[in-house]
């Protein structure tokens, strides 16, 4: 109860700061109320929904690719000691590259459109998921694997009944971060070269100095991201508690 109250208090403080900046620079920032009103207006417009569908579709595809690819890569590398040692610094340095510099390459390969956005979102999400999955398997208590060997489990059985259940909490943490980064990747992709989607709407609104629309789209994205993350965070914490 107190926790919920604290969260509400925090949101209220953020809203007050937002309103204060609005009063200082009315042309740069719409007030919270104005933004909410514009968001409600957008939700009622028919032309808004195709953009949402476009972004969601790209995001969903990218998420599926990043999840499956990242998990496969991470689990395979994690099970192989040398592989993990070799790959770790390579993955970390790819993770910290400013991937936006590679966006032109992706555009040249895939052309403008959906597939470029999906590819860009995927390369943002896949690496952190792989890193988390790899480390979760690497840091498994050795006694689990020894037990599996004592019981003569096959490789597939070991993976299914020992490795994955034990690594699940860390994997979920990785998925949570991958989720956020994939969304960011898709949006950046849409902001730079796209004719549709929410990222394009933001860029278009910036170009037209349509601050209310820009703020409204950002607000809706933020609400979506925070809500999805809260669910994953809850799952994450529950799984971590169950194990320890």
């Amino acid at each position, binding site marked *: 109860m107190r926790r919920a109250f604290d969260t509400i208090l925090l949101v209220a403080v953020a809203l007050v700061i937002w309103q204060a900046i609005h009063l200082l620079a009315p042309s740069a920032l719409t007030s919270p109320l104005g933004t909410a009103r514009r968001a409600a207006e957008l939700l009622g417009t028919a032309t808004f929904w195709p953009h949402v569908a476009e972004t969601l579709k790209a995001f969903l595809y990218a998420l599926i690719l990043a999840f499956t690819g990242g998990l496969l890569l991470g689990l395979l590398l994690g099970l192989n000691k040398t592989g993990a040692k070799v790959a770790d610094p390579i993955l970390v340095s790819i993770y910290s590259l400013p991937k936006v510099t590679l966006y032109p390459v992706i555009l040249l390969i895939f052309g403008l459109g959906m597939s470029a956005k999906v590819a860009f979102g995927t390369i943002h999400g896949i690496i952190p998921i792989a890193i988390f999955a790899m480390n979760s398997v690497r840091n498994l208590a050795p006694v689990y694997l020894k037990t599996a060997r004592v019981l003569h489990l096959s490789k597939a059985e070991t993976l299914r009944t020992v490795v994955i259940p034990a690594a699940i909490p860390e994997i979920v943490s990785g998925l949570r971060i991958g989720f956020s980064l994939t969304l960011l990747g898709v949006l950046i992709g849409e902001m730079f070269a796209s004719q549709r989607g929410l990222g394009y709407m933001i860029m278009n609104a910036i170009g037209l100095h349509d601050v209310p629309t820009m703020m409204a789209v950002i607000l809706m*994205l933020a609400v979506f991201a925070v809500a999805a993350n809260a669910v994953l965070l809850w799952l994450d914490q529950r799984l971590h508690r169950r194990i320890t």
Partner: protein
Amino acid sequence: MNRVAWLRYFIVTGFIVFLEVLCRTGIIPATVMIPPTSMAAHLWALLASGRVTPDIIETIGNVIAAFLLSVTVGFALGAVIHSFPRLRRAIDPFLATYYALPFFAFYPLFIVLFGLGRPPIIAIGFLFGVVAMIIATLNGFDRIPRALLKTAAVYRMDPLSTALRIKLPSAAPYLFTGVKLAVAYSFIGVIAGEFIMSSSGLGYSIAYAFNNFDNKTMYALMLFVIVLVTAVNAFFYVWEQRLLARRGR
């Protein structure tokens, strides 16, 4: 050098040679990608001509400014948040979600607040880096062994020397992780900011070359960014390994 390091060099070199062969044989057309060796040659020519030097200096300056700001402010905020558990519990989910937000969208706001030019780009880099530092600081302070704090209390150390002689050293590995992330994120934020909406700097130059179908310049600059970022990250990686080795972990 051990076997693992050799294997790593082998994979990276093998990948570059693979790209080179694909490009030279025309499997990857020259309109999509130019061979790595000609990227390097163009980069050399570009650097020698001095045409991009101002952009490079500007980008590096922006990154350094964003990095220093995010580390100092992130550490200070992390320390403050850590000392108020209630605030911390309320703010945690927001910190975890933070990186899903498209910061670049706030750029027009920064222009109004900071004016045109470099400050808004630095602000984007700062926003990218600061939260990683806050999270690392919180993590580090969480992991300080209780016994050490109790010992400090027994010795009646004042808060400042407790902070400097107990908290800082025992949280250091986590803080270093934050510093490493802040470097990487400052680069990502600054270059992405320049890419999407600046009119100077490396990110802008790459986007400009892309829009003008100037593949040679684009790939040369990309190579520069990749080499620069990898070198900086590798430097911090090696430094961290040394620190950890000295701690006997």
